[in-house]
C-alpha cells in the first residue's frame, strides 16, 4: 500500500525514468517528500521551471527517451508552458507532472491555482487530471506511452495535492502495457504507395531527398544513408534534421530553407522528384508555397497523417513510421534489381557541383575575412575543429543558431539540439544541462548569443550544483543579431530596441560569480587557442564571451514570397 505521492515516484521508477527536472512548491510537496525518501529517481533542481522543461527536452533529444518534468501548481505550471510549447512544436517526447491545488478547491481561485490542463491544451499531445489516487499508476503508463509513440509530444499530468496525501494509502501495481481504444499510431506504410514511391524515385532524373527531424526521432539515420547511397541522390536536411544524414558526406548538400545553402535550395527547386522523409514543409523551408518546386513530384513519408498535404500537396503520401517505410523501400529497390538512370543522375550531380562552386558556403569562404573583427562563422568552424565534429551542440535562437546549423557539420543524429519550431530563446543552456545529465562524459557545447543566454542565465547556478561542465560559447555582437539583420534589410537600419548600449553584464565575472571559468576573446588570432583551452577544461563550466562582428548577416537568405531558388547570397548579391 502506497500513498499517491509514493505511487507517482514509484511509477516513474517502474517506467524507467532516471532523472526528473523540476522545482518544488506547495502543491507538489507530498511528491517531493516521496522523492526525498527514495534513491532510484534522481531530481535536478533547476532555477526556473522553464529551464526544467528545456532540460528534459534536451535530455529527450539526446537520448530518444522521454524527458520528465515536475513542477508545482500556478506559477510553476505557467512557467513550464514555454518549454512545453517548444517540445510540442518539435515533437519531443516529454511528460510534465504539475501539482494542482486540492481537488475541492479547484475552480475557487485558490492560492497558486491555475487551470493547467486548460492552459496547456493547445500545446500538448494529451493531458490528464488525476481524479483519484488509484488512477496514478495507469495514468503515468498512459502518459509515457502517448508521449513516446506515434508522433511524439509532451503530455501533462495535473495532480491535485490531495491525490498525493501521505495518509491515504492504496494498492499499487504498475501495468505492463496500456491500451487506448482511441489511439493507435500508424506503423507500417501502405505497400501500394511504397511501391509507387520506389518507381517514381528510380525513374527520377533529378531526385532529392529532403529529410527532417522525423528521421532523427524515428532512429532511421542508417536507413536514410542506405537509401541515399542506393539512389545516388543528393540529400538535404531541415534544421531539425541536421545529423540525420552525415554532414561531411559528399551527397549532403546542406540545410535547406530560409538560411539553407544555395545548393540545397537550388537542388530542391530544380528537382523532378522530392522524397520528403519525416519533414513537414515548414514555412521556413518552402518559402512561398505557390512557387514551391514547380516541376517536382512529391513523395511524403510521415507518421502523422495531418502533416501530409497540410501546406504542400503530396503526390504520393505515405503514412507510417519512417523506419518501417524506409526499410520497405530499400527492400523493394533491392528486389526490383532496377537502378536509377546513371547518365541522368551524373548530369544532375554535375549541375549540383556547379551550384556548389558558384555560391556554396562549404566550397569556399563567402564572408569577408579581411577585417580584424572575429566572424561568427569562424567561431563555429573553430568549435567544429576543436571538438572534432563530435560534440553535442545545443543552441539558442537567432543568428548564432543559423551559423551553428550551417557550419557545424553533424555526422551523427541527436547531436544538434535546438528549438526549431517555436524558436525559443533561452533554450540552449538548460537543454545543454539535460544533454550532460544524459551523458556525463560527453562534450556538450551551448552556442548562444548575449541576448538568448540572458533568458535562462540563472541556470549557471544549476550547473554548479550538479557539476554539469557544459561549455557556453557566447557569440557576443552586443545586439539582437537576427532582429538587427532584419532591421538592416527591411527597416533601413532603424534598430528598434535591438541594441544593448553598454548595458551588458561582464559575462566573465558573472561566470566566475557562479563558480565557473569565464574567458573573453576579442582578437581573431586568439580564437583557436582559447577554444582549445576551454575544451581542455573537461570538468569545468566555461563561459566564453567571444566578441564578434556586429555587422555580420546570415546568408544565404531566401527572399520572402518567392520560390526556393530566390536568395540573397550576400549583402549585395541576389540570385
Amino acid at each position, binding site marked *: 500500500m502506497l500513498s499517491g505521492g509514493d505511487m507517482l515516484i514509484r511509477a516513474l521508477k517502474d517506467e524507467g525514468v532516471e532523472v526528473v527536472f523540476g522545482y518544488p512548491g506547495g502543491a507538489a510537496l507530498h511528491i517531493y517528500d516521496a522523492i526525498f525518501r527514495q534513491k532510484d529517481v534522481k531530481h535536478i533542481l533547476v532555477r526556473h521551471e522553464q529551464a526544467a522543461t528545456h532540460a528534459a527536452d534536451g535530455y529527450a533529444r539526446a537520448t530518444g527517451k522521454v524527458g520528465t518534468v515536475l513542477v508545482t501548481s500556478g506559477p510553476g505550471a505557467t512557467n513550464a508552458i514555454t518549454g512545453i510549447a517548444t517540445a510540442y512544436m518539435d515533437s519531443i517526447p516529454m511528460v510534465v507532472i504539475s501539482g494542482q491545488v486540492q481537488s475541492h478547491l479547484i475552480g475557487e481561485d485558490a492560492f497558486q491555482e491555475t487551470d493547467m*490542463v*486548460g492552459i496547456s*491544451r*493547445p500545446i500538448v*499531445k*494529451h*493531458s490528464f*487530471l488525476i481524479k483519484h489516487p488509484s488512477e496514478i499508476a495507469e495514468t503515468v503508463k498512459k502518459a509515457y506511452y*502517448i508521449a513516446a509513440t506515434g508522433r511524439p509530444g509532451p503530455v501533462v499530468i495535473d495532480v491535485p495535492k490531495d491525490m498525493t496525501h501521505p495518509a491515504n494509502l492504496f494498492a499499487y501495481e504498475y501495468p505492463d502495457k496500456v491500451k*487506448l*481504444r*482511441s*489511439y493507435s499510431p500508424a506503423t507500417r506504410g501502405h505497400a501500394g504507395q511504397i511501391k509507387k514511391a520506389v518507381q517514381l524515385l528510380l525513374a527520377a532524373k533529378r531526385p532529392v531527398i529532403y529529410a527532417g527531424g522525423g528521421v532523427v526521432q524515428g532512429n532511421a539515420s542508417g536507413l536514410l544513408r542506405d537509401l541515399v547511397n542506393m539512389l545516388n541522390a543528393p540529400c538535404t536536411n531541415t534544421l531539425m534534421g541536421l545529423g540525420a544524414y552525415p554532414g561531411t558526406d559528399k551527397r549532403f548538400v546542406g540545410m535547406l530553407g530560409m538560411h539553407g545553402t544555395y545548393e540545397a535550395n537550388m537542388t530542391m527547386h530544380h528537382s523532378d522528384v522530392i522524397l520528403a522523409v519525416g519533414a513537414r514543409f515548414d514555412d521556413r523551408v518552402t518559402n512561398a508555397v505557390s512557387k514551391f518546386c514547380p516541376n517536382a513530384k512529391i513523395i511524403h513519408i510521415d507518421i*502523422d*497523417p*495531418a502533416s501530409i*498535404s*497540410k501546406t504542400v500537396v503530396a503526390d504520393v503520401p505515405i503514412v507510417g513510421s519512417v523506419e518501417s517505410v524506409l526499410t520497405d523501400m530499400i527492400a523493394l529497390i533491392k528486389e526490383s534489381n532496377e537502378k536509377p538512370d546513371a547518365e541522368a543522375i551524373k548530369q544532375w550531380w554535375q549541375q549540383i557541383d556547379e551550384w556548389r562552386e558558384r555560391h556554396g558556403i562549404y566550397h569556399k569562404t563567402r564572408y569577408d575575412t579581411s577585417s580584424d573583427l572575429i566572424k561568427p562563422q569562424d567561431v563555429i568552424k573553430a568549435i567544429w575543429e576543436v571538438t572534432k565534429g563530435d560534440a553535442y551542440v545545443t543552441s539558442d535562437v537567432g543568428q548564432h543558431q543559423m551559423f551553428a546549423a550551417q557550419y557545424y557539420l553533424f555526422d551523427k543524429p541527436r547531436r544538434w539540439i535546438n528549438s526549431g519550431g517555436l524558436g525559443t530563446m533561452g533554450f540552449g543552456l538548460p537543454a545543454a544541462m539535460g544533454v550532460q545529465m544524459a551523458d556525463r562524459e560527453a562534450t556538450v557545447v551551448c552556442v548562444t548569443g548575449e541576448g538568448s543566454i540572458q533568458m535562462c542565465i540563472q541556470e549557471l547556478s544549476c550547473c554548479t550544483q550538479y557539476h554539469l561542465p557544459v561549455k557556453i560559447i557566447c557569440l557576443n555582437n552586443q545586439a539582437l543579431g537576427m532582429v538587427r539583420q532584419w532591421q538592416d534589410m527591411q527597416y533601413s537600419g532603424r534598430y528598434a530596441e535591438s541594441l544593448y548600449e553598454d548595458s551588458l553584464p561582464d559575462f566573465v565575472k558573472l561566470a566566475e560569480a557562479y563558480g565557473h571559468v569565464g574567458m573573453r576573446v576579442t582578437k581573431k588570432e586568439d580564437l583557436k587557442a582559447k577554444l582549445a583551452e576551454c575544451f581542455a577544461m573537461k570538468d569545468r563550466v566555461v563561459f566564453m564571451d567571444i566578441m564578434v562582428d556586429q555587422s555580420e548577416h546570415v546568408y544565404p537568405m531566401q527572399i520572402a514570397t518567392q520560390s526556393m531558388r530566390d536568395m540573397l547570397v550576400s549583402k549585395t548579391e541576389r540570385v
Partner: protein
Amino acid sequence: MRRIISVLVENAPGALSRVVGLFSQRGYNIESLTVAPTEDQTLSRLTLTTLGDDHKIEQITKHLNKLIDVVKLVDLTEGAHIERELMLIKVKASGAQRAEVKRCVDIFRGQIVDVTSTLYTIQITGASDKLDAFLEAVGDASIIEVVRTGVCGISRGEKVLSL
C-alpha cells in the same frame, strides 16, 4: 462547402474542450455543435457543422482524429444522410396574426407547444434550411425569441458510426 462531421468521443471531462479548442486554435469555423452521451455511457456523440473546402475539411478530420479522446468520426456529408435540427420559437400571435401563424406552423409541420394570449411557442424540426425558411415565412417583426439545437445527423441505410 457545408459539412456535417459526426464524432464519437470519450465521455470524459475535457474532451469537448479539446474538440472546440482545436477549432479555435487552427482557425476553423464551427457553425453549430451538439453533444450528448450515447447508449454506451463511455462515449459521447458530437455533431458539428463547419464550412470549408476539401483541403480544409481533410485537415479538420485529420486533426480531430489525432485527439486522443476522439475514438471515431465520419463526415456525414460524404454520403446519403439524414440531418435534423430542433427549433423552439416564440412568435407574436394576437388578432388576425393568430390564425396566420397557426397556418404557417401547419405548413411547416411544426407544433404549437405553448400558448398565451399574445404569443405562440412553436416547435419545429427538420433540416436547417427548413428552419431558416420558417423564420423567413414568419418574418422578423413577429419573432420574439429563437433557440436552435444545432444539427445532428446520421447516415442513411446500413452505414453506422460505432466502435
